[in-house]
């Protein structure tokens, strides 16, 4: 009898110990990181995902005085916006010498709303030897709802290294970063950027042009080619799609979506 009671108590202690161990183990184990794009897209500096077109200015002397982008966002839903997830439909203009850049476009998410678009601008002075952006700034107009189809422009209007950003035709600011941003830029990209642990919904298209040294607006391309890319890699391509803009099939114009 005594042995039986001792045995039951022992079993009970064992069970409670096991339960405690399992609770501690589950509490301290690293939770599986949510991601999509077959693990390539999640909220980390190395896991922003992109679908974009790029004009590779590979010919000597090729450069631009500015560029324009008309994104037309037809679908947008960022379910985890409250966690800081965001989706941008936008354009980047950069300088290969410093790897600094300016970008402009419309976004949803970023702790504001799942689906409402807001215009934003951002820039970085340069990229340091470790690959990090230095001198970063971003401004978002939370009280301004962007149209689904909007015009954005980045230009050095006086060709003196002072770069200005325009939303529709409103000049919103200018900056100069002497030594980092040159008078003319030689990198152009446009498309979507996603920062999210769970796959958002985004679809739309874009039309782009560039501003030549003389101020003329022209189609992307010049002497060099324009390509489309999915970044960071093959797995993301299963859930991000990009194709030529069927309604406006010119260099750099594209349709993109989460797919």
């Amino acid at each position, binding site marked *: 009898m005594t042995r039986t009671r001792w045995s039951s108590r022992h079993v009970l202690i064992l069970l409670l110990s096991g339960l405690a161990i399992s609770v501690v183990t589950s509490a301290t184990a690293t939770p599986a990181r949510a991601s999509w794009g077959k693990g390539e897209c999640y909220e980390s500096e190395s896991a922003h995902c992109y679908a974009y077109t790029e004009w590779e200015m590979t010919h000597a002397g090729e450069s631009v005085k500015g560029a324009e982008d008309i994104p037309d966002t037809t679908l947008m839903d960022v379910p985890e916006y409250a966690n*800081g997830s965001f989706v941008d439909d936008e354009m980047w203009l950069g300088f290969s010498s410093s790897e600094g850049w300016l970008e402009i476009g419309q976004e949803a998410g970023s*702790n504001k709303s799942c689906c409402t678009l807001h215009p*934003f601008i951002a820039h970085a002075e340069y990229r340091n030897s470790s690959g990090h952006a*230095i001198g970063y700034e971003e401004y978002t107009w939370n009280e301004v709802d962007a149209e689904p189809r909007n015009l954005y422009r980045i230009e050095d209007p006086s060709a003196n290294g002072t770069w200005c950003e325009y939303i529709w035709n409103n000049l*919103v600011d200018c900056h*100069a970063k002497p030594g980092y941003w040159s008078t003319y830029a030689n990198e152009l990209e446009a498309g979507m*950027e996603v920062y999210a642990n769970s796959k958002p919904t985004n679809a739309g298209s874009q039309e782009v042009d560039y501003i030549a040294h003389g101020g003329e*607006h022209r189609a992307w391309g010049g002497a060099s080619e324009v390509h489309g*890319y999915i970044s960071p890699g093959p797995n993301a391509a299963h859930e991000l799609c990009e194709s030529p803009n069927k309604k406006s099939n010119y*260099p750099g114009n594209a349709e993109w979506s989460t797919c």
Partner: protein
Amino acid sequence: MRPVIIKTVLARNRRLILAVLAACSIVGASQALSASAGTSSSPPNPSPFAAYLTPPATTLSPEEIVAIARSESARAGELNPTISISKGSFENAMRSVDPSTIIPETSEPGEQAMFATPVSLVVMHGAFTLQDAHVRHGVKAPIGSVLDLIIDEHTGAVMGRALPSPSDLAASLPLASTSSTKAKDGIIVGSVGAGGGPPHRGRYRIKWSVPHTAVVVMSLKHVILLTTMTDGKGLFSIRIRPGHYLVTSTFTNDCLTNRVVVRPGKIVSTHVSCSIK
């Protein structure tokens, strides 16, 4: 090597490009995008700022601002930042964060209201990494030792974030100063360089740039008005009232003193050459 997954090759047709270029040379700038993009439709006409929503009349308490700042700092990887807060308009806060900022005059009421939005400028010191910044593909997250937040005083929304570069930090002004001196300041940007032989105007004799050295701005009567430092690449940026100034450096006893004219809302550049004999 960047992964190339979709190679849409949108620009193979040179004839097409030439046609577009020809079209663009004919039409005006405002129509050029449509012409170059081959579409007859245009974006919506009303300015997005025309419908600027005036924030509700409640104002956040300092404690609420600090709570927002701490939350943003934690997201940027810094749990124990030092925090200072000042108040002003969105426009002045932008100038305070980045002295090179030039904001245009606008007659549009919506845009004026937007730039006049009352904000708190939070300046935090620590070690920050903005994982959730807007970045180009292939670029690592922005980093910095100072995180600036521009927070809408009424809604608590973060309107701006910045990790200023060393040169911006050297030239930055507190928000109160930008409010009082906002009226059409200009900017002096430039560099300090050194080399052998006598100092020269221009760069052709300069052997190297001089980082972290003092730059001095004086009146034409050689009264020192302010000093700042060059950044790691020997560059500097100074926001100042319009006028005539002398700019020099104390790197050696033989630096050129350059005369500059600062005009409202304009940037003037100058290069200070120093001789090391």
